[in-house]
């Protein structure tokens, strides 16, 4: 079994989960201010909170994926990388649209 393929695939999954988490917590904390206050309360600043939580979620999800996944094929890796690219683009568009909406509507 190629452990490098498996590890890389786990890191890709970790990055995907982290990006989705950033989008969800950003939108949710802006719409529901008690959450933003909670983040500030525990981590001093909401941005610092999101940064620290992102690192924790990345490591956790990569470890879970590495532990529970079987052998990774090259084809899966390519699909994973393309998914990561696509999710990054979609997340960027969603965040931009959300802040536009929040500002003007």
């Amino acid at each position, binding site marked *: 079994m190629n452990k490098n393929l498996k590890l890389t695939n786990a890191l890709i999954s970790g990055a995907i989960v982290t990006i989705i988490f950033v989008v969800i917590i950003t939108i949710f904390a802006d719409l529901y201010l008690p959450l933003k206050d909670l983040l500030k309360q525990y981590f001093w600043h909401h941005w610092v909170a999101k940064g620290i939580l992102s690192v924790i979620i990345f490591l956790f999800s990569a470890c879970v994926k590495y532990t529970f996944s079987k052998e990774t094929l090259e084809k899966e890796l*390519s699909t994973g990388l393309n998914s990561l690219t696509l999710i990054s683009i979609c997340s960027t568009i969603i965040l931009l649209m959300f802040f536009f909406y929040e500002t003007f509507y």
Partner: protein
Amino acid sequence: MTGLLAIVAYYAVWFDLIKKDINIDFLKKSSLYGLLLFLLSWLSGGYYYALYYGNVVKPIIKIGPYPWAHTIFMEFKEHIFLFIPFLALVVTLCFFLLENNIKGNKEIKQSITYLSAIIVFLSTIITFSGIIISGAVR
């Protein structure tokens, strides 16, 4: 400044990947420098944003003629910035862990090329957002 240098590093990675014969040692070094610079940028930019921007710069923008510079571009920039180091980490580790796979598999090479391009694209958007925000303060 560190963010700009990181963009240069990933621009170099992107363009080396487009070539037919890639230089894996160059890709390893350039992506690693880029990753370290992004992390440095994360720390220095985060320090500036959390300690200085919110107290001094943000109030000036919000009472000025361009409050949207903060509510759209700063908010957008600070959150996109959160996930770029993870993308850079994935690209860097691909070069270190999958050297043979990248050389022998066109699909993987192409996927990493796209991801590197996205890193450059998003970082450039962040830079331009920074220019808009700076302009709104004056």
